[in-house]
């Protein structure tokens, strides 16, 4: 691999990793508060892809309005899922709510197939995002360069929110002890809603950034990215926001280089993610930035 191919792969890998990171944050935040692996998260991401298509192609919205529309629609979908499928199970064993999440995942995939057909739909151009840009020997669509910047800005904002605002403090408090948090006057449902709003907005932003350099969206588009980002969250230490970002970068970059270095193995690039997961669980089950696992009492 010569230098320019190397840098080209770096750029692609970092960009893919940033998109993964945004999805992984959603997994990790929901896990942090509900101890739930939201298996529907990848499908919410897929729906955001469709929302983008509807906004631009079917409703002819200008791109900047479309972005807002996609974020709002995705957030509404995510919050509705939480209300309908998770909230009624708040007092049930954790396994029930996991199974409900798997159910929602299937429901979204199958509804998308039924409503939008199983045929892939072309992903539209959003303003300037797909314009190809050159830096030295490296050329990529602008979106590839923007994605990491967006991710870092969002990460900084989130860290500020969680560590330095009263709402963030309440999120951290509730994530350890619902009952004690209630005794402070914290409204748990409110905190959970905020968590889903953040997670789904990030999934929406990620969908726009992820699908832009790709040709199309189909009902199972969320499946592999969803699983990989779940792995990213575990690798980073589930519940830990910077960890999810680190995990996202690792998977995105590793996957890109694997495919570039061993084209014959590219069919196995998805399997590779899970090999990483297994290695991680064997040697450091709490993830890179995760602390000791304290079960919620």
């Amino acid at each position, binding site marked *: 691999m010569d230098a320019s191919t190397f840098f080209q792969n770096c750029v692609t890998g970092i960009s893919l990793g940033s998109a993964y990171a945004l999805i992984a944050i959603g997994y990790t935040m929901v896990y942090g508060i509900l101890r739930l692996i939201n298996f529907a998260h990848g499908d919410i991401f897929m729906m955001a892809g469709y929302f983008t298509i509807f906004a631009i192609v079917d409703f002819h919205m200008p791109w900047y309005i479309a972005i807002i529309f996609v974020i709002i629609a995705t957030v509404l979908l995510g919050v509705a899922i939480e209300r309908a499928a998770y909230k009624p199970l708040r007092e049930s064993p954790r396994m029930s709510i996991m199974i409900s999440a798997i159910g929602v995942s299937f429901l979204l995939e199958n509804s998308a197939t039924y409503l939008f057909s199983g045929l892939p739909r072309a992903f539209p151009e959003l303003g300037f995002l797909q314009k190809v840009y050159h830096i030295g020997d490296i050329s990529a669509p602008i979106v590839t360069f923007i994605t990491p910047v967006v991710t870092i800005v969002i990460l900084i904002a989130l860290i500020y929110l969680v560590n330095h605002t009263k709402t963030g403090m309440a999120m951290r*408090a509730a994530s350890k002890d619902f009952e004690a948090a209630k005794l*402070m*006057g914290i409204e748990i449902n409110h905190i959970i809603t905020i968590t889903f709003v953040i997670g789904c907005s990030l999934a929406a932003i990620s969908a726009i950034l992820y699908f832009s350099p790709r040709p199309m969206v189909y009902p199972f588009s969320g499946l592999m990215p969803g699983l990989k980002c779940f792995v990213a969250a575990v690798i980073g230490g589930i519940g830990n926001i910077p960890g999810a970002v680190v995990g996202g970068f690792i998977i995105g970059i590793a996957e890109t280089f694997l495919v570039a270095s061993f084209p014959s193995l590219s069919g196995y690039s998805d399997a590779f993610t899970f090999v990483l997961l297994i290695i991680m669980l064997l040697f450091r089950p709490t993830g890179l930035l995760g602390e000791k696992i304290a079960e919620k009492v």
Partner: protein
Amino acid sequence: MLKIENLHIHYGGIHALRGVSLDVPDGQIISLIGANGAGKSTTLKAIMSLIPMTDGRVSFDGTDITRMQTRDIVREGVVLCPEGRRVFPDLTIAENLTMGAYLRKDKESIAKDTKWVYDLFPRLLERKWQLAGTLSGGEQQMLAVGRALMSKPKLLMMDEPSLGLAPIIIKNIFEIIKEINQSGVNILLIEQNAKAALEISHYGYVVETGTIVLCGPGKELLTNDQVRKAYLGE
């Protein structure tokens, strides 16, 4: 004042409280004593709407708070310092206190109360930025009490504040409870340490298997034969 009438609680098939009634008049310290599993903690949790009650009525300062949301009950001034400390381990001492004041907006009086809490427990001030999870048991208990005070209670309910503490700290805690009461906060106290609790209480109730079996002024209960045998180990 707090008034509980005929409180019934079921845990699944278990009838844990069978018609508990009690009063906490203004300006007083009231104790609730009883053996393990008698239903003391259950009573306090029910008051806070943490568990649903089957029957009964709770009112505070004339307002019916029976089926209010926990946060609204806290707003009314009824605050529970729960059994087992339950401080937020990943938050610093200062942040835990901020959480105590979660519903309050009055910055100045929050600052005043923060200072008051640090005056009561200078230990907490020294360790302001330490994570609560790394504090010793006694320090966590001080924090739990301090955090409850930050909610600006009119009625502070404390569930076994002396549990697991060294005798010297226990003495300290009871002094502080008196001090809090003298500052105008009504107190409903649960204690295993029946003697120390009754000594500082204006009035006490004895719970056995979900019912009040005895009540009277603290001093009287201390000399009551039944209480002495069962709870004072004499």
